[in-house]
């Protein structure tokens, strides 16, 4: 692919000598190819992982993802701890949106021990609020971050500032900024502080302004359009083949959203419709996320309006030190900012889980989809493609 923005015709040796497909035979001894390692420590990689690129000129002939640089054995750590001790570890599986993992542990243990219906209503609304706030802070970094991969840095500055404001709200609601440890089996760990809704509304108004500004900056931007449009196209037939979920699937017209398809918490009481696009390229994915930003702001407003003023935050449960869960297994899923996530949770009647397995969207997106997408792409676009697929290495290596 010739980078149209270059505005000149590249020399012949810069171009691939053949049409690249995943089956293209690469003979390294021919000296036509070069191997480049992108990562594991590279500012453009969203965490610690490496992509081994085989390039010819600027064109990627083959890409292979290497993970394992930050494996900390989270699943095993949780399997060796009491049920209540699981959630502070689970959040480390994803720095960007830790709340989803808290919810999995809480929900799975509640389901298996028969307390799923006992969770107080107020607590469930607070869970939704914290999950949507997590999605919002993720998008505030993710949407302008996509511009950042094309060297459009200013949007990232704006987004990080606004994300900090949401972290301020997290701080007063949950007692922590990044690792909130808020959703616990049986409910949540705090009520809504006084004046929270007004302060949140102030922040949401700032974000409303940002949404307009970032639209002008990115989506009415000739550079962004030139580079993102037509880049790394996901077609609808790939969705089931690769297990693509979330915004990546919705950007190519496949409307999949757990919140709608299989509503959990009180999402069926909220008025929203997940946005979709048809192009399936980097631009479309960013556009969908921008629309989700608008929608998430709206959802937080809806939650704050609909939730009860006060109530119990946790149901009565067994003593956490002696808590045993009967033999059973469950799969809990939700729609995270990156798409459908799930946790398979097995108990054997003891006081610790028998097996935990996290199904994260990054596993498919950053390994199989990324490797497929990079073939034929330009070296300069690798980061853009990675970010557009919402790669999160810690979540791959649980």
């Amino acid at each position, binding site marked *: 692919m010739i980078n149209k923005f270059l505005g000149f015709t590249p020399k012949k040796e810069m171009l691939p000598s053949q049409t690249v497909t995943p089956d293209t035979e690469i003979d390294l001894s021919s000296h036509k190819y070069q191997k480049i390692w992108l990562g594991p420590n590279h500012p453009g990689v969203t965490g610690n992982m490496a992509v081994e690129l085989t390039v010819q000129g600027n064109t990627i002939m083959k890409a292979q993802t290497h993970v394992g640089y930050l494996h900390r054995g989270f699943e095993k750590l949780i399997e060796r701890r009491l049920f209540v001790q699981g959630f*502070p570890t689970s959040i480390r599986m994803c720095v960007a949106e830790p709340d989803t993992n808290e919810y999995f542990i809480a929900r799975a243990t509640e389901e298996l021990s028969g307390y799923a219906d006992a969770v107080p209503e107020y607590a469930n609304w607070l869970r939704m609020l914290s999950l949507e706030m997590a999605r919002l802070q993720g998008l505030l970094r993710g949407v302008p971050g996509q511009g950042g991969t094309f060297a459009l840095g200013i949007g990232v500055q704006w987004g990080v500032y606004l994300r900090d404001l949401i972290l301020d709200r997290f*701080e007063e609601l949950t007692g922590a900024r990044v690792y909130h440890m808020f959703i616990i089996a049986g409910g949540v*760990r705090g*009520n809504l502080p006084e004046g929270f809704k007004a302060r949140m509304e102030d922040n949401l108004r700032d974000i409303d302004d940002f949404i307009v500004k970032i639209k002008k900056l990115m989506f*009415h931007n000739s550079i962004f359009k030139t580079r993102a449009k037509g880049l790394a196209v996901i077609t609808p037939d790939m969705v089931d083949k690769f297990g693509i979920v979330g915004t990546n699937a919705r950007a190519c017209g496949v409307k999949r959203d757990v919140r709608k398809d299989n509503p959990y918490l009180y999402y069926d009481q909220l008025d929203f419709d997940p946005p979709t696009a048809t192009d399936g390229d980097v631009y479309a994915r960013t556009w969908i996320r921008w629309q989700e930003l608008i929608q998430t702001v709206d959802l937080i407003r809806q939650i704050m309006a609909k939730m009860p003023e006060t109530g119990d*935050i946790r149901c009565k449960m067994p003593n956490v030190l002696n808590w045993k869960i009967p033999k059973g297994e469950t799969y809990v899923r939700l729609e995270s900012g990156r798409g459908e996530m799930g946790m398979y949770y097995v108990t054997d009647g003891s006081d610790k889980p028998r097996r935990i397995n996290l199904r994260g969207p990054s596993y498919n997106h950053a390994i199989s989809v990324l490797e497929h997408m990079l073939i034929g792409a330009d070296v300069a676009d690798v980061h853009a493609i990675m970010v557009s697929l919402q790669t999160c290495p810690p979540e791959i290596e649980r």
Partner: protein
Amino acid sequence: MNIKDILTPFTAWANVVKEPVTIKDPFNREAAPRYRGFHDNDIEACIGCGTCEAICENQAIDLIPVDGVETKDGDSGLRPQVDYGRCCWCALCVDICTTDSLRLTNEYTWIDTDPDNFIFTPGVTPKSWYKKEEGWRKPGNGYEFYSKERVDMEELHAEERIDSFIEFVKGYSKEQAEKEADRCVSCGICTATCPAHMGIPEYIKAIRNDDLEEGLRVLYETNPLPEICGRICTHKCEDVCSVGHNGDPLSIRWLKRYIADQNPSEKYKEILNQDTSKSNGKKVAIIGAGPSGLSAAYYLALLGYECTIFEKLPEAGGMMRYGIPEYRLPYDQIDKDVNYILELGVEIKYGVNIGTDIKLEQLGKDFDAVFSGTGLHLGRSTRIPGTDNENVYFATDLLREIVLGKDIYVPEKIVVIGGGNVAMDITRSLARLQQIKYGKVDCTATSLESEDIMPADREEVVEAREESAIVDPGWGPKSIEIENGKVKGLNVVKCLSVFDENHAFSPKFDEDNKKFFPADMVVESIGQGMDLSYLSKEFKEKLKFTERGRIKVDEYFQSGVEWLFVGGDIIEGPDVIHGIANGHKAAVGIDNLLNK
């Protein structure tokens, strides 16, 4: 793409004229009021129960000894030390803290050059943030890690129980026992306080695991009278239970009873699997088949000694049978515990009075060692005018006579002097007898101590009142009014205080505030005395005595005479669990003596 797409991004330049949003001084930024910052611990309130250590998922907390904190009943003397190299600030330690002493302040910056400083003891190591009020505390709104409410044992209503001596506390069901056992945080503060150091967290765990046979094995490690203790133990463990600092303490006594009740006596031998067939050829005599004597016999039998218990009364149990009414401790439950000890080869000779039938010195010659646990069977008198009347009784005598089936004098109006558990026992026993005889109760208990400092268990007072007895505390007895040789009633004056500033017994009265309790019979229950008449004068000279007249013993309850060990109520207590502990310790002492 059009010209607009080239120009629009330049609108970002509008920000040049805006105020920057950067925080100028991030080090002085105040965190949110709920922020989970650095630890603080209220050292005075903390009891070192270690639940923080148990719940910490990173093993960041260790319990360590701290200068100025003494180990005592209800306080391990340890305090949590936090390692900030491991801590993840989840604050589960705060949420489970049984005393609410641990908290996180909202201070969050700490710069230090020495990494070792980041291991510190909150509340002890001086830190600037302790003065901060804000930070993470245990959330309210129904948030609790263990239930604070005790599962009550069902009881017969007062109307159902008042006309008989039937046991009125019904016992736990499986579901109730498991629910109550679930509340335990396994801190072990109770074990340290229990005179017998019973493995309380272990047997409560056995209940949770529904392994009551294991529970029984744990009980018998330290206590051979679980049925009895499960009913009438003074439960010092419950007084110090860490869960009780912020809710109801665990019903440790009832849980013990549950284990013993659920295991049938026929299976004890199989479950406990204790072999006493191998004798070591040595013989030990035990005087008194009370808790201390039975306990000593049990542990000595396990060590291979041939034990013979000499009991004055017709049945075993001592004060447990002849001092505690049947409605609190049914005789078949005493028999269950005693019979198991007898199954181990222990022999009891009933109706033998040491001192008159056999001399103590003779026992010393016939046996390798002697353990004496003769208990407190004598009543104490107030010595007020009128106590010499025939219708003025001691509670201990009456209680014994009720058990022996004697026909005791039960008039229509009775007054009991005393505010302890024995006073409540005799009041409630007499109330039952009145109900049976007259169909109504008119029995009043009056004590020197006011209601708040009455030595009786609170539940005893409440239950006595439920049974229509009157408990009227705070009166000092002055005289018993006698008319024509018959008791007419008790004159009392208001007691203002019982103890002086030094906590010494020195009652003060308001002589003008008088009251008269009409009664046909007065029962004195102000304490019990020991009967040491079995010790001859020459023998007494060989022993040493404390200032309070008790026989002086060493830590293994060995007296001044090498072969004589003394324990039970006459040394410590008075209560059953001290007796059991004494008997156990004395058995070790006897074994040390004879196996030297």
